[in-house]
């Protein structure tokens, strides 16, 4: 087979089109995210003019302070919006890493047991130990990491196959869900309510410290992920081929799984196991890309967008009640996905 100039021209053209598509999708998502971010700072019970918000945001530089407005913007709305973006992106990255590694769109951390680990641990902390606040977050974090390690160890047998990880994850998920149900039937109603509120996931208690912890974790995890992703191209050809090409299959897979667990665990500790963001972001990003790339960046943007928009809806949908964001992510994410499924008839395939 000879490669003619015409072939090369065609390949270059296809690659260029793919790159354009990737950039276009990312740019569109960033614009949407910026718009949602502006809305998150602008909307609220206490009306602040756009000018006042900009002045507040710049106040650390300009020194122009208006204590009341600064408090609302810098201490209430900004931390909440930032945490929504960080947590959404983290969930999305955790989801798409697992979905890619395990080659199954259903294999997001909320299905293969990691979210269950965090939840069971948190419910135990709330109902049995009587903890609240930060202690519960720490408990959830430990639960997620411990569950992930257990799944990996149990799945280890001369290496780890994706299929074993998924099935063992499901076994663990069933046991942990049973723990939660059991604790629910044995506790007093007010404890169950408290645990239930945590399980749904909420941004109502967002503090700047949460964003700093999660942001710090992401600063470490994102570069690690980018470095590890290089090995993934070879792995998509199958483990044996990848090994023959010199890729360190086990190291790459273990590394990526640890990174994904890190994303899921830190995000869950910050906002609770907000459902569906991890699951929906990857398939959505990929369908927007239509095969023009793996879509990790785009998935992170989709996750952030879903989370931020969901939180806006949760805050302002009902005039008297502030819903927890986890009630809305399911609905928002699902509407996105349904629209996508319907549209896929015209454009081709999902995922």
């Amino acid at each position: 087979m000879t490669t003619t100039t015409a072939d090369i021209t065609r390949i270059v053209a296809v690659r260029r089109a793919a790159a354009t598509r990737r950039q276009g999708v990312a740019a569109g998502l960033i614009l949407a995210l910026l718009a949602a971010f502006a809305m998150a700072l602008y909307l609220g019970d206490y009306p602040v003019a756009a000018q006042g918000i900009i002045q507040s945001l710049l106040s650390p530089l300009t020194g122009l302070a208006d204590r009341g407005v600064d408090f609302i913007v810098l201490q209430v709305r900004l931390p909440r919006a930032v945490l929504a973006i960080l947590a959404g992106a983290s969930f999305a990255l955790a989801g798409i890493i697992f979905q890619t590694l395990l080659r199954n769109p259903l294999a997001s951390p909320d299905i293969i047991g990691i979210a269950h680990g965090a939840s069971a641990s948190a419910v135990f902390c709330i109902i049995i130990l009587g903890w609240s606040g930060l202690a519960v977050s720490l408990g959830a974090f430990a639960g997620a990491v411990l569950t992930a390690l257990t799944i990996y160890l149990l799945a280890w047998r001369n290496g780890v196959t994706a299929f074993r990880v998924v099935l063992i994850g499901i076994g663990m998920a069933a046991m942990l869900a049973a723990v939660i149900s059991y604790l629910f039937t044995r506790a007093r109603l007010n404890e169950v309510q408290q645990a239930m509120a945590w399980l749904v996931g909420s941004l109502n208690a967002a503090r700047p410290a949460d964003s700093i912890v999660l942001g710090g974790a992401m600063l470490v995890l994102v570069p690690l992920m980018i470095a590890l992703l290089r090995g993934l191209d070879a792995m998509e050809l199958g483990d044996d081929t990848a090994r023959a090409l010199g890729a360190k299959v086990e190291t790459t897979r273990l590394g990526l799984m640890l990174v994904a667990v890190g994303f899921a665990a830190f995000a869950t500790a910050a906002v609770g196991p907000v459902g569906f963001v991890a699951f929906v972001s990857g398939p959505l990003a990929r369908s927007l890309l239509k095969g023009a790339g793996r879509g990790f960046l785009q998935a992170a943007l989709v996750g952030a967008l879903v989370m931020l928009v969901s939180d806006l809806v949760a805050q302002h949908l009902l005039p008297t009640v502030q819903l927890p964001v986890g009630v809305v992510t399911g609905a928002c994410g699902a509407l996105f996905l349904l629209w996508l499924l319907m549209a896929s008839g015209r454009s081709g395939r999902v995922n």
Partner: protein
Amino acid sequence: MTRLMAEAINIRTHKAVRLTIGLLVLGAALLAITMLSLTTGARAIPPEHVWAALTAFDPSSTEHRIVLDLRLPRTIVGLMVGAALGLSGAVLQGATRNPLADPTILGINAGASLAVVLGVGLMGVSQLSIYVWLAFAGAGVAMLVVYAVASLGREGATPIKLALAGAAITAVLHSIINAILLTSPRTLDEVRFWQVGSLSGRTIDIAIQVAPFMVLGMVLALATARLLDGLSMGDDVARALGQRIGLSRGMAGLAAVILAGASTAAAGPIAFVGLTVPHVARAITGPGYRWILPYSMLMAPILLLGADVLGRIIAPPGEVQVGIVTAFLGAPFFIALVRRRKLAAL
């Protein structure tokens, strides 16, 4: 050539004999566990008394009353629910060709839960016998919506679209359930006990209510075995062999929703059984739904009734709900199996 063919036939008959013996063993185990379920409980009743209660019922005997009014209905419901869960899981995994497919993922359980939550929250329903119809209606509607959404578009209900649509609908339904449970403590209090999945307190009325659906679903499910074998070769091959893909999936889906809906109605949402039992069955039988379906149908009630019996004796004087015990009994076994054998991918 003839020798090779003879050998091939020999191997096939050998396998059929082995698997038939396996089925008989499972049947015997199921009988034994049924007997155990009738004899054990807060008050142990010897087998001969159970037999007497069944054949020569004496209304004045407390033991006879316990057997006939409490344990027999509970055991019958357990047998039906177990068989239904095992079959529906196997059929769904075959129809969607996804090893993770089960009634939970396709929205069936979420639909049932939402209907019950709405019934309790808005209409103040508190009777188990009304839960049955609510759960059944909810499961049916949810599955119809999932299937309709997945069928939109040119290529119809592909496995991946079914799975994604199911997950999406489940998420929406859970959002609504969570919103109701968070705002209505009374509903949460009522539903948390149903949500676990339990066989306790099931009367013979409930068994009679769901029995027709169970039978219909089982017949339909067992009839899809050949269609599922066709689908397992991939849509293109199946189509080339003259199979009507959409019709096959529709029939399998219908069987699964009837079975899963009826079992959720009778015992509450019980996860895990429908998902994992078919994998265990497949590890024993190899591919081929002609064997996977009956194996799943016999193994699942063994797990469910066994778990129920265990739940009655581990925490006296109370009992642990069957949904909790199945997970704790089944999951370690399942994990060990996944580790030991190479379970087949679909």
